[in-house]
């Protein structure tokens, strides 16, 4: 079965420090992986995707993600966190006409 997992319910980081939000995947064949962000009372916004090619993918708002095939991971990263990055983050992958989403990780960036 295709799936992604987000092992951390919550991540706390100080403003200006680097952040990492973790995601691991289990798919057959070549994985397609996505990251989304959700602010309170809003829909999910697409951040970035990995299809093939470079293992480091750059996306919106200064975020990037590193694909690691040996560790079956696709961690979301940002070199310097902002308080405004505080939100709920979802890792996801497609399965035919549907998407399967991780359980979400709440990122808290403290001033």
């Amino acid at each position: 079965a295709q799936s992604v997992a987000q092992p951390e319910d919550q991540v706390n980081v100080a403003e200006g420090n680097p952040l990492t939000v973790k995601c691991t995947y289990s798919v057959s064949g070549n994985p397609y992986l996505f990251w989304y962000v959700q602010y309170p009372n809003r829909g999910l916004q697409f951040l970035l995707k990995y299809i093939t090619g470079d293992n480091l993918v750059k996306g919106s708002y200064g975020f990037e993600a590193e694909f690691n095939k040996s560790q079956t991971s696709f961690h979301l990263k940002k070199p310097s966190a902002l308080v405004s990055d505080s939100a709920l983050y979802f890792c996801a992958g497609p399965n035919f006409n549907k998407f399967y989403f991780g359980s979400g990780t709440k990122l808290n960036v403290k001033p």
Partner: protein
Amino acid sequence: SQTIHQWPATLVQPVGSPLSLECTVEGTSNPNLYWYRQAAGRGLQLLFYSVGIGQISSEVPQNLSASRPQDRQFILSSKKLLLSDSGFYLCAWGRQGLNQPQHFGDGTRLSIL
């Protein structure tokens, strides 16, 4: 550019009342359309999806139904709401293809009293 509209933004309904939530997409044709429910600001539960007019796939048997009367219109309905139907309902659209992201509306917060 493509946009997705979802309304209403918030809704308070009594138990046993009917429900109709509407979602429309502009700027694209023949999109895949999706209804999700999100409880307590966490995980997403896929309720229904549609790959074309009149084609509805149900993921979870429940008190809700969906319809797609037009190419870019997706409706979520219920004849009689239950307390357990409370939640945050999200509509999304996507194109065919594994490398295509989904795009979400801003959701409807449904409270059942």
